[in-house]
């Protein structure tokens, strides 16, 4: 265990040329990035992209084959780094033969939290996550959403500086998912660093200040969700519906339209200049005597950006 902090003092997580192979295949392939202290950082990627492997290296569950990873100034996997981190592993479970309260006290003991502090924190966390009334029930009687809320509480019992969450809301009911997101926002406002692994683009868009997109073990982009969305400008679009049916070819012939898709009773016109196309649609409708029911300009979603970036990377590979 290193006694002194190493590397960048203001970075909560610092990864340099990290590599991890399984059976000769690179699950994580020479990735580098930093997460600032107090940042809400998203780590996005399709299944098998290397997200969980990266988190497992950062939380000390796996050892990297190459490169370095530092958490709160200490080598990832060292006792000091682990002491400063809270972890919600993918598909993790609490001990089902123990109550929620006993699970929390067990975690508090493993992190060396004094009993009086642990009890106070446990009560507050269970209250925030809507589990206080069921604190003495065995976890085996909990629903999946309740278990996941408890696992988050277990990760927070040591009041960690940085929190690693691997798909924390995957497959959860709306109420549990909302409670978890609300608590994460609150923690981030209080200055905690959050490292969120997800493949839910909406979640990343709502919560994260910056996101990294990983595909086939390589980082393909790191930026704010907004800038990533705008960076794929070719996916801007105009959505229009008319009272009467119209040929898609007429819309495709409008200047600046690169592609037309029919979606139910609407048409989606892809263009790099949505304002000009919207005006052209209005002009065309006026000329042809068509009534417009709705007309919207749509910016590309983070999902569009994600698909474009991962497809681009796959083509280059």
């Amino acid at each position, binding site marked *: *265990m290193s*006694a002194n902090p190493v590397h960048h003092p203001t970075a909560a997580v610092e990864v340099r040329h990290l590599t991890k192979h399984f059976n000769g295949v690179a699950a994580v392939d020479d990735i580098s990035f930093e997460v600032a202290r107090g940042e809400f950082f998203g780590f996005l990627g399709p299944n098998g992209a290397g997200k969980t492997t990266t988190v*497992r290296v950062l*939380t*000390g*569950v*796996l*050892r990297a084959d190459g490169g370095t990873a530092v958490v709160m100034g200490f080598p990832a996997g060292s*006792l*000091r780094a*682990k*002491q400063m*981190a809270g*972890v919600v*592993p993918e*598909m*993790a*479970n*609490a*001990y*089902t*033969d*123990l109550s929620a309260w*006993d699970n929390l006290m*067990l*975690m508090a*003991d*493993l*992190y*060396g939290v004094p009993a009086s502090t642990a009890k106070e924190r446990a009560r507050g966390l269970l209250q925030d996550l809507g589990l206080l009334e069921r604190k003495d029930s065995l976890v085996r009687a909990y629903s999946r959403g309740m278990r996941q809320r408890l*696992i988050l509480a*277990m990760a927070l019992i040591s009041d960690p500086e940085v929190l*690693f969450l691997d798909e924390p809301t995957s497959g959860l009911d709306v109420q549990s998912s909302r409670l978890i997101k609300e608590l994460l926002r609150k923690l981030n406002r209080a200055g905690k660093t959050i490292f969120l692994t997800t493949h839910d683009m909406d979640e990343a868009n709502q919560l994260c200040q910056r996101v990294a997109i990983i595909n086939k073990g390589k980082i393909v982009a790191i930026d704010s969700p907004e800038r990533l969305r705008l960076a794929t400008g070719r996916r801007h679009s105009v959505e229009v519906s008319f009272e009467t049916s119209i040929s898609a070819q007429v819309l495709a012939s409008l200047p600046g339209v690169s592609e037309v898709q029919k979606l139910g009773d609407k048409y989606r016109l892809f263009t790099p200049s949505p304002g000009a196309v919207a005006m052209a649609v209005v002009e065309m409708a006026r000329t042809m005597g068509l009534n417009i029911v709705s007309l919207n300009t749509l910016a590309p979603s983070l999902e569009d950006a994600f698909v474009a970036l991962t497809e681009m990377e796959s083509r280059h590979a």
Partner: protein
Amino acid sequence: MPELSLLGQQLRRSLTIARKDMRIYYSKGPVVIFGVLFPVFLFLAFSIGREFTIDFMMPGLIGMVLFFTATSISPVVVPWEAQARTLERLMSSPIRLETIIAGDILASLLFGIAISAVPIIAGLVLGITIASPALFALAVIVAAVCFAALGNIFSVPPSNVPATVNMIAAAVRFPVIFISGVFIPLQQLPHWGQWIAYISPLTYFTDIARGCIQGQAHLPPAVDFALLIAFAALFLVLAMRLHHRTMPRRL
């Protein structure tokens, strides 16, 4: 000093692991009952119809109960945790892998000692006398450490199916019972049988127990203890090192 404080911290956390194991895995009624009944019935199957004295029977029975119970649950704790998806959470806590293994072994040896108290007390009620109670108690503790560490080694192969691990454990546990002087004292074994017996740590505990209860040990107590301690040290080191190699493959 920081190393000492770190050692103290990790020891406290291994106690937490042991307490967790005791509550979750060892306190179940069937585990306790099976821990006592199985070795007793196995022993009775081999001794009924023969004219054995209680002094002759008890050292073997105590050795067998201690061996079976200390190696009963420890092989399956790690696979259970991996299967229940609680292991990754433990691995990301500020504890070393050695701390987890030490906690698992501690719970196992305490269970072995507690269950072995049943035949010891029964023997005392039936009239056996233990010539050197302190020596005997020390032997029970050292043997429990040795057997619990051996049990933990059975869980090294990275299988998360408890039945597979139990099969591996059974393949070792049963032969060990038959070669360790449990049913036939060492001095009554042929020369080649004695050499086979020397590769089993249970032999040395049974020999100490025969010395304390029957007054008929085959080897000097110092030799029995030295070999029992050597086996315990070897199994502890192997358990720690081998789990380091295989743990990443179970997660």
